[in-house]
């Protein structure tokens, strides 16, 4: 028999199905620290967080709700925020997304966008407040506002990227 071509009905590789989403989030978290960019303010959107949210909005049941713990810890190691910040906040976000996907019957593109935007805004603001507990609240929030706006505008792009990765993830051999 000729075994070289893909067999009819053969599922995608299980290893790739599990690995691609996790690897994309981990790489996106580590990427900002690998660019030769000395930033004077939080200029880059939180790439890891955006991928994390988009994967959960695209594939609601792919990950267990506790996946934010290991991925958040990895992000904390690279983002500069105190270790544990993203662990806690990302996990709360995935619980919230799991809840919202139960409540909203037909979730459309704009629902997804709104959920991702609210999550990014809340997570980045709380993370900044946890990072600088002594500083004035208004000033700390003012620091992250431009970043939040950029991130919210980039959510559709990240949805598309996540969709591309998802196609690759589920592609038959």
């Amino acid at each position, binding site marked *: 028999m000729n075994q070289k071509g893909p067999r009819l009905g053969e599922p995608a590789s299980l290893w790739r199905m599990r690995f691609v989403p996790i690897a994309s989030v981990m790489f996106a978290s*580590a990427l*900002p*620290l*690998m*660019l*030769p*960019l*000395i*930033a*004077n*303010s*939080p*200029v*880059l*959107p*939180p*790439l*890891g967080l955006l991928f994390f949210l988009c994967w959960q909005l695209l594939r*609601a*049941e792919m990950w*267990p*709700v*506790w996946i*934010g*713990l290991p991925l*958040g810890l990895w992000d904390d*190691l*690279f*983002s*500069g*925020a*105190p*270790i*544990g*910040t*993203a*662990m*806690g*906040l990302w*996990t*709360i976000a*995935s*619980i919230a997304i*799991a809840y919202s*996907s*139960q409540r909203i019957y*037909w*979730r*459309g593109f704009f629902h997804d966008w709104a959920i991702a935007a609210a999550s990014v805004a809340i997570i980045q603001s709380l*993370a*900044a407040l*946890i*990072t*600088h*507990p002594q*500083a004035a609240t208004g*000033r*700390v929030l003012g*620091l*992250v506002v431009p970043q939040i706006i950029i991130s919210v505008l980039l959510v559709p792009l990240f949805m598309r990227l996540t969709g591309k990765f998802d196609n690759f993830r589920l592609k038959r051999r």
Partner: protein
Amino acid sequence: MVRPAHRRPGQSRKAQYSLFVAYVIAVTGAVAGLLLAILSVVDPIGFAQLRLASQEIAAPVARASRSVIGSISGIDDTVGAYVSAGTQNRRLRKELADTRRELVATSSLQEENRQLKALLKLQETDKTALANGYLLTSTSTSSKRIALLSIGRNLGVAAGQPVRGADGLIGRVLGAGPSVSQVLLLTDVDNIVPVRRARDGLPALASGRGNGDLDVRTLNIANNPFKPGDILVTSGTGGLYPPNIPVAIVVRRQDDGALARPLADPGKVDAVSVLRPYTPDNIEAQGRPAPAPLPAPTGTP
């Protein structure tokens, strides 16, 4: 997307329990994570090693990408330089002529200064750096301003040492790993530097705003003596930063002090030096005419 039929996973006890356990783990983990975050704000030293390990992973990639791309922050300057090359050339020639004249005047002053110092038996403090390196990359997604320095414990870098560039102060070392170290930049919200005005020695405190600027406050609240253009240098108070390192220039007055811009832009500075912390031991060691410590070899770019 249709709502997943996830809420009740059928009659299977096993499926129900595993869903319940996942939620228990998530909630416990989230609470533990936030407690951990508060703990690591209170005691940043305990988790520094973990973070340095991750930065050792990122550093080789950052080194490679830096050598390929160069520093990203320079791009706008490079483009601008081409556009305004002609006028800049004319202006620079004029400045060069002026500077030559000033240099002649200054050299005579320097000689006079040297003689006066000899008269007073003042000794030049040891200005040699402990080690030289360059800034590789920095955190750019969080509100913490930490840069990665290309050298670490291998060249004697340790936590608490001040870091300066050619133009002025950059920050201080937060933690040192085997081959890279973290530098808390001057502009971080939590970085407070005791400064004084270069002109008259007026003491003040400079604290970062987190967006590249500094807030300057005098110790005396009653009046606001700052004027745009005032140069601030480190005062040496508090014993971390050695005195007389340029820090910032005042841009405009504010209600409770002034807004200043750092003189050394970490995005544009090429090489930085790690200095000895300004502690009593080091000051004494520098005062003694002991054999000068060998300048550490420069980190290779």
